[in-house]
């Protein structure tokens, strides 16, 4: 392997990278005209970069504000910047002189204000929707928070619906998303660390964790991995995280992407870390494991026995999704003697007149199913439903009538499709759908032996996966038996006194005896 790598390894050329440093070292000057023209140049004379010059409090001192009209809240600029500065600036009039602190403390009523002097800070602020105030004769400016939170309102989760519990989903605005989490977790130890990502398009992202619960090593590991990431443009949270996972090429999701704030809150309380990015209506939770991806929010709103049975049925769904067509092929092509004679006769009679062998039939149906599922996602909801009906019922029925596929194959494909929808995590569902075909090929070539060997290889692969140092199959196995109660099954809520040991939390106790007695009272 090493020799091959050396042979084919080519000397990598370092591409000429975009250099933001050309303007990052520039500082504000005392001339407002100069400042306006510099910012215009940096922003390539963008049509939405607006500037407004005026006299401060009726005096002869000129000042100017600059903002991006498509991002900033113009009402806020009018009310909290222009109106006080032009008309209500009593401080300037009484004292005859002023400095930036006077303006910041007495003249501006905006909630967040920062004194800046480099164009690096100014450009980042203005592009985020802030307004820069520059005053003639001052080589420092005031960056005023005027970001307009225009966007859709908080709605229901589209891909992670639940029967019970909260029905809110993240939106594209980071501030609102942070609020959705904060509202549910009223703990001062909830930390949101703001960072910026991207060489060209700088995007704000937040690393959220519970101080005193999340393992310090885990938090610093995530921070380190993110800090070395040098992305050119704006990446989504999921893209960004997929680049820093232990095995970026794995088809299995090594991070949990969710649009539900309640899931993030639950993860943070367990000691995991969440990452949210501005412009992304989802949060990424790390680390994650296969059993966690099989959990649904509804599980925690039901009795533990019912929730456990539902979880186990989802596991059956996983096996059916990946293996059912392969097992059908293996049994019909290699081991028909495994089945009772009546069942064999029934299968044989249903396949009478079908011109293809079972595996061709299965591949055909699986391919059609994939097309239908893809079409259902791309099309608008109303049309999507029509496609599902036409595809599922009309094409299926017509294919059986035409003798292209057997009715049994239609049943198997339908069961497989239904089973695939039981997987709560969309990315995991896709991975399982992907696995269907290799298993079918193994079934065609080596029957159930091939399927079994495929399963063993798959299990070995899963066991070798790690998500930020945490084994992907935890808590399955003997390493953390105390975590079994919230793994494949769900124990009673009273039994979950400790946080998952697998996450190595700083504070392992979730529910103490004293609290329990208090709660019962």
């Amino acid at each position: 392997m090493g020799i091959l790598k050396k042979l084919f390894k080519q000397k990598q050329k370092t591409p000429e990278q975009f250099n933001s440093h050309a303007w990052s070292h520039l500082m504000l000057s005392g001339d407002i005209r100069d400042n306006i023209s510099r910012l215009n140049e940096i922003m390539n004379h963008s049509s939405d970069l607006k500037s407004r010059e005026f006299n401060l409090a009726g005096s002869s001192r000129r000042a100017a504000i600059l903002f991006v009209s498509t991002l900033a809240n113009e009402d806020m600029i009018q009310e909290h910047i222009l109106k006080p500065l032009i008309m209500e600036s009593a401080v300037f009039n009484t004292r005859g002189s002023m400095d930036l602190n006077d303006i910041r403390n007495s003249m501006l009523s905006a909630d967040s204000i920062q004194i800046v002097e480099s164009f690096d800070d100014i450009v980042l602020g203005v592009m985020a929707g802030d307004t820069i105030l520059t005053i003639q004769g001052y080589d420092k400016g005031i960056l005023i928070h005027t970001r307009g939170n225009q966007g859709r309102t908080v709605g229901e989760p589209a891909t992670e619906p639940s029967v019970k519990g909260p029905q809110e989903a993240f939106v594209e605005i980071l501030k609102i998303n942070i609020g959705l989490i904060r509202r549910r977790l009223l703990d001062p130890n909830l930390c949101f660390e703001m960072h910026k990502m991207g060489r060209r398009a700088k995007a704000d992202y937040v690393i959220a964790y519970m101080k005193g619960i999340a393992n310090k090593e885990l938090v610093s590991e995530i921070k380190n991995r993110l800090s070395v990431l040098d992305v050119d443009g704006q990446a989504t949270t999921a893209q960004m995280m997929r680049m820093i996972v232990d095995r970026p090429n794995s088809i299995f999701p090594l991070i949990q992407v969710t649009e539900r704030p309640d899931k993030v809150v639950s993860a943070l309380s367990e000691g995991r870390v969440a990452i949210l990015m501005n412009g992304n209506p989802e949060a990424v939770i790390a680390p994650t494991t296969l059993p966690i991806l099989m959990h649904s929010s509804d599980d925690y709103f039901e009795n533990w026995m019912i929730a456990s049975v539902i979880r186990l049925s989802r596991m059956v769904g996983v096996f059916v999704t990946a293996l059912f067509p392969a097992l059908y092929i293996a049994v019909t092509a290699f081991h028909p003697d495994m089945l009772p004679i009546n069942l064999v006769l029934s299968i044989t009679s249903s396949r009478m007149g079908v011109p293809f062998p079972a595996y061709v039939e299965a591949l055909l149906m699986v391919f059609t199913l994939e097309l239908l599922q893809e079409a259902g996602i791309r099309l608008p909801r109303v049309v999507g439903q029509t496609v599902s009906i036409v595809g599922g019922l009309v094409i299926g029925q017509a294919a059986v009538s035409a003798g292209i596929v057997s009715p049994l194959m239609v049943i198997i494909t339908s069961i497989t499709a239904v089973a695939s929808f039981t997987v709560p995590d969309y990315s995991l569902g896709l991975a399982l759908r992907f696995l269907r075909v290799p298993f079918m090929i193994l079934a065609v070539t080596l029957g159930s032996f091939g399927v079994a060997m495929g399963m063993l290889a798959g299990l070995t692969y899963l066991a070798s996966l790690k998500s930020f140092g945490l084994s992907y199959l935890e808590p399955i196995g003997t390493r953390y038996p105390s975590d079994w109660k919230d793994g494949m099954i769900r124990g009673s809520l009273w039994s979950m006194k400790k946080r998952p040991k697998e996450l190595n939390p700083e504070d392992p106790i979730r529910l103490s005896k004293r609290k329990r007695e208090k709660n019962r009272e």
Partner: protein
Amino acid sequence: MNKSKLNPIQMMTLISAGILGVDILTVQRRMVEKAGRDAWISLLLGGLLTLISGTLSYLLSVQYPGKDLPEILIEIGGRFLGRIFLAAVAAYILLYLGVSIRVFTQALLIFLLDRTPIFVLILFISLVTGYAVFKDLDTIGKVVDILFPITMLTVFFIMLLALPQSNPIRLRPVLYHNTSDTLKAVLPGYQRFTGASLILYFMKHVRRSRGTFLWYLAGLVIPIVSYAALTLISIMVFGTRETITQAYPTLTLIKSIQFPSVFLERLESLAAVFWIGLVFNASTLFYYASLRNTIILFSIPEKYKTYIIWGHIALLMAIGLSKGQVWKAMERFDSARLLQSLITLVLFPLLLGFTLLKKRRRITKSHESTK
């Protein structure tokens, strides 16, 4: 975040899985051939011997913390003698691995894939086990943790289902005119628990030592009880004569189970599929041991580990395909086991004695020098 090391509890699953390999299919026949209706007693006595030799192996590993068997052998025997010992161990482990894969593929040919060339099956099993070894011992431990309970459940389920067909009279008279054969069969019984000495390869990687020995003993007791129970049930169902005539009595035992055939007609084929996991577990563990032996024996740097892993496939194919007859393969299996008995019952106790003596001398010397 969490350092990858084996847990003491994993000693139970790893050792049990290492012992319960392909022998689960043939143990009754081999034992009944030797000890007749009292084969189960021989197995229990063999098990007792395994517990003793296993304890000695454990004690030997404890004397050399941070080292596995090949490293211990080199340390005790030096470069020359140590390598001779290691060569014997390596030869046995490789032979055992190759032959057990061959024996299992033969069963697959009979019960599952009668028209598939045997080399394809051997190649596939070798590839998948090699892939597991290519990962690390931590991965192997996790896979075994998951597969072991599932496969054991199938074994116990089958024994339970076979009970209604059993006739306890077939066991009688116990030890009547058969004491000498029963005692003679203790050694072959002991040889069924080959995987017991795998502890010498795993102890290096165990996180904590506390409780490890008890888990290890549990890992020995599970296969001892399972094999003895399986043999007992097979004798009660088939009787001694019939048990001897069957190539794979366990699979035939499944055949005898009267199971309402709603979905499945041939339960033995399904069991053969299930027990691929059982053989996979044992093969992976022996494959790992063989890899360690080869690396230390030839002083190969760790970076070439990958080549050794995949190179093993050629050796396993050669052993598995050397002679086409399954019976021949099984005979070779037994000769390989004789080597195992010599290693575990003679070599390891000698090495332990030598180590303890050396340690004692060192302590006495240090005492004298302080005086």
